[in-house]
């Protein structure tokens, strides 16, 4: 993925969607909905809200596909921008969501001790990621889970590549410190 729109592999689909092609819409949903939902969920920690963000993002696409102008940015960059903005709006509305991480532990799903330990580890990771400043978190999620290169992340966040490198460096340093105890915990539990 690059920031130029000229070689955008999604462009034919977006044009077809603008002409009302339902199969093109389905293809694009299959290509991006799951990834966006995972991104939004990691940003918000709430499945329903994450799905609402993705639904809003696609709704904007359905409405604007007819007027899509190729060349400015790649479609995927635009879609992630819309989703990231949606997440930011929701986070602004409810700043205090750190308690949600603990909800996972309350879920008494069958599977025994091992599953509970995994849930605990997930909760620690989730909490550590959630405690990152928004921009650091966005950069990290796009880098680690969506496999985006730093120039693409810069396009989504609308900042310079150097700024992205700085965001990622601070995020990773902090996570390394926060998640280091998990290693020793894991060893202790398994022995």
């Amino acid at each position, binding site marked *: 993925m690059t920031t130029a729109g000229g070689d955008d592999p999604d462009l034919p689909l977006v044009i077809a969607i603008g002409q009302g092609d*339902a199969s093109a819409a389905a293809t694009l*949903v299959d290509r991006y909905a799951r990834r966006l*939902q995972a991104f939004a969920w990691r940003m918000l920690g709430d499945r329903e809200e994450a799905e609402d963000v993705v639904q809003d993002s696609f709704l904007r696409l359905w409405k604007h596909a007819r007027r899509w102008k190729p060349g400015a940015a790649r479609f995927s960059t635009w879609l992630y921008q819309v989703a990231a903005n949606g997440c930011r709006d929701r986070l602004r509305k409810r700043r205090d969501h750190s308690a949600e991480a603990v909800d996972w532990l309350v879920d008494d799903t069958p599977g025994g001790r091992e599953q509970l330990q995994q849930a605990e580890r997930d909760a620690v990771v989730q909490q550590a990621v959630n405690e990152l400043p928004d921009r650091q978190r966005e950069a990290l999620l796009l880098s680690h889970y969506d496999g985006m290169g730093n120039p693409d992340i810069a396009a989504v966040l609308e900042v310079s590549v150097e700024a992205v490198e700085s965001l990622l460096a601070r995020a990773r340093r902090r996570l390394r410190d926060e998640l280091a105890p998990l290693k020793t915990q894991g060893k202790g539990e398994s022995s």
Partner: protein
Amino acid sequence: MTSETPNKLSLSRFEELLDQHGSDATGWPATERDAAQALLTMSAEARSLQQRAAETDQRLSQWQSPEASPGFRRRLLADFAAQQPAPSWLGLLMRQLGGARLAMPAMAAAMVLGIMVGNWLPMDGSSVDDVASDDALSLLQYDLGEEGEW
């Protein structure tokens, strides 16, 4: 002139690269990859840093997101369908006729036929057949006569 041996990389720059790009060196700038690899083979400290970064990445990778709720995909596509304008009678007709490729020639032929028939038919009363004209006139008079009383 290119050097046979990769440029040297300081440990602090190596750590910076780990922080900026993650533990997987395939995503690192190509210009520094060879030097990083050389440092890894020489420095135990570099290997330790790389190991720590890889563990963090692994922890992050284990954090899986939940599946989307059932019907999520259908909901997105229902939104798409709802955004589409209602099809016009012309569109429906074209679809019935097998799409634009088949319907357009048929419609063009119908239009040409319509123009030809229009040209063939008289435009004013002067060319109308006299008998037909007289019949029409008497019929009009008859109607007027009947209705004139009201």
